[in-house]
């Protein structure tokens, strides 16, 4: 099939291309099962080498190629042409400064991430037998969903609250905090809850739910944010998440 790609572009190195503009590319012989990333590569490798984007693993794990595809945040390597049709519109993710074509400045995103203490804290002496700390599988599963996050920014850059206020830490940072807050081995849950109680913390979330369908890892982002809100209200982390009884 023939597919037309309409791509939002800009290039700071070229005086006439500094402002954003749209450019169309026509690709022939597209297989419906081709990934959008492969088609962007075809454009870059066969038609216009200046087209710029980030990508790496090409199967939805590294989180490099988040972009707005037909108006929805997706990873270009995880969406197939057949799910989009013969006209595909591609823009950089919203709410971040665009550097060149589909490449945005990710620093603000990682700055928010670093703010929530995204690392394990436990200052107790290590087990005397030299082995691992103990944890039940049920406790391990409480935060399983949020361990899947790949920091692609699809959720944060789909959030109207983030678009309105770039100081809001955003869904991804909250998911990262969630991963530690509900880990029974971690000891800094309360500090993270304090950070997320601040004005640009979790209460900026208006439960709009854009983040959940945007997540390429199928994390229930809004639910995780809700659990953090509940933990702040109840001033506790135990008993907030109900164990999944299906297995």
């Amino acid at each position, binding site marked *: 099939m023939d597919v037309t790609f309409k791509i939002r572009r800009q290039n700071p190195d070229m005086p006439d291309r500094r402002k954003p503009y749209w450019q169309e590319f026509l690709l022939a012989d597209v297989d419906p*099962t081709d990934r959008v990333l492969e088609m962007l590569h075809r454009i870059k490798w066969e038609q216009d*080498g200046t087209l710029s984007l980030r990508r790496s693993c090409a199967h*939805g794990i590294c*989180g490099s190629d988040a972009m707005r595809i037909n108006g929805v945040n997706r990873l270009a390597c995880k969406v197939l042409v057949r799910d989009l049709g013969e006209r595909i519109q591609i823009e950089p993710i919203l709410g971040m400064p665009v550097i060149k074509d589909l490449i945005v400045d990710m620093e603000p995103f990682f700055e928010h991430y670093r703010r929530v203490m995204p*690392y394990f804290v436990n200052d107790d002496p290590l087990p005397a037998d030299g*082995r*691992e700390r*103990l944890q039940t599988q049920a406790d391990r599963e409480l935060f399983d969903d949020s361990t899947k996050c*790949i920091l692609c920014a699809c959720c944060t850059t789909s959030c109207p609250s983030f678009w309105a206020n770039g100081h809001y830490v955003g869904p991804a940072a909250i998911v990262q905090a969630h991963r530690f807050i509900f880990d029974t081995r971690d000891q800094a849950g309360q500090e993270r809850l304090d950070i997320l109680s601040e004005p640009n913390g979790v209460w900026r979330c208006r439960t709009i739910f854009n983040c959940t369908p945007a997540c390429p890892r199928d994390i229930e982002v809004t639910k995780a944010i809700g659990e953090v809100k509940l933990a702040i209200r109840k001033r506790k982390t135990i008993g907030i998440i109900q164990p999944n009884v*299906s297995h």
Partner: protein
Amino acid sequence: MQIHKHDAIIIGAGGAGLMAALYASKGGADVAVVSKLYPTRSHTGTAQGGIGAALGNLDEDKPIYHTYDTVKGGDYLTDQHAAKILAENAVDAVIELEHMGLPFDRTSEKRISQRRFGGHTRNFGEELVRRACHAADRTGHMILQTLYQQCIKNEVSFFDEFQVVDMIVVDGVCAGVVAIELGTGEFHIFHGKASFFATGGWGRCWSVTSNAHSLTGDGAAIALRRGVPLEDMEFFQFHPTGIYRMGILITEGVRGEGGVLINSQGERFMERYAPSAKDLASRDVVSRAIYLETRAGRSIKNRGYVHLDVRPQTVNRYFAEEGRDQGDFINDATVERKLPDILDFCRTYLGVDPVKEPMPVQPTAHYAMGGIPTNVDAEVIIDAAGTVMPGAYAAGETACVSVHGANRLGTNSLVDLVVFGRRGGMKMAEYVKGADWVPLPDDAGQEIRAEFDRIRSGSGSSRPGELRAKMQETMMDNVGVFRTEDTLRQGIDDLAELRERFHRDLRIDDKALVFNTDLMEAWELGCLLDLADVTARAAIERKESRGAHSREDFKGRDDEHWMAHSLVLHDGRLDNPAYEVNFDKRVDLSLWEEEIAKGVPEERQKFRPIERVY
């Protein structure tokens, strides 16, 4: 050129790089991590099934069994003392990862859960053992995330999206590296007492690969051009189960959970090739079996792929045949819980639901056993005698210790990262305390800048994309799973032509500075072409079949002549280098030699090279 000065420069922010960064900084060194990707984009994150360590949480296990499996899996090209260190250090390293917060799955005793993996056995091959410590099927993701988190906690300095393009060697000492800041296109010099290469593999030399687009072997190519030989380059692993045509990896953990490979006759063909380990024989064995089934006309629809079947009814039927305990039987929920990412890949890319249908799989270029030669402390060595290049370190896939020998066992790549990243980090911390700063030469970085100017100004007719596709095709056809003198000669000739076009006829569209990915991809193609060339040249010289290197014109393993590592040297000319291949570096057989010294009778020696049977 802006100059940055740090005790230790880590190049690459995957598992090996971050582990080295953590341990070097804990040891008191001032560390900078320079990476072309944001650290969490590194390919360690795609590792799925597990990290092997003889914790013995579910089955009786000992590091010496893990050592044995690693040596045997490597078809006896593995350096035995290095394998011993790998297996022993693996236990501590995995425990340390847990202490850093890594969310491993748990056993009913609340300990780290473990699963079976290819080639991992108890008591010197007696039976398969649960050794792979796992966090669902995203173990690598969790390792990468955990290490990055700990680096943030320890305030390690990161230079994200800085791509290292050259190393600075002064009188045989490594004094740092040259990098391009991708966001500005500017060159920077990182002046360090120690430089640690952890840049990963070069699977992108082949057309069907599990490797990320960014796996272009930058570190290995840079070192090669600066006088470091590359070791054992002829050994490149094809993983048996890549998604048909795409190459995306389907973890061996699928077979660890009971999944089986089935041909067009509905036969579980691995029973013929490996009567004992069957589908969990080592990867080289299974990949060859799939090719042989294909040649015999037994691939599905005759298209070169087979089925990987993890449907509970199939798995349980074979479990019942094998007399396995009912408690081992699986259901749909088990598959969903243990292999969520695999299900997601198949549903997304194939529209296939592995709980209901088998997955179409074919071998996919996966892992470089060879690379930058190092000793067991990750110090780069430059000859068969083990002479160290002061200030240069390497670990992970880009390095060759050699613990993987001629074929790596599943899970051992993650073990390699953490074990040798950690050892290298500690060693660097110690080294930088005593070492003097080597002054930078006045022209540091000028040569590589000129090379980039040449590439950028390219106005010929050969697009990098076209050259890359042709390289990948010839590597797949001629330097793949099966090789002969003729195919390898063809590969070398094709590569010579592509290299000629790369150096004389390149065309680059993007002349800009900011995020010039066209330029960077072209330079990366140059790295791939060099590494492809070295691979083919080492392969044509090794006239035997061993592990992943399968010569149809020299079918057997020949221990009399080839118990040696290859070393390929490059003369430093970028456009038309001369190579020297030697086999002077003997395989370390110290564990076998100990057995002999102790008077262990031959039939009871465990580390004597014998024919591999799975």
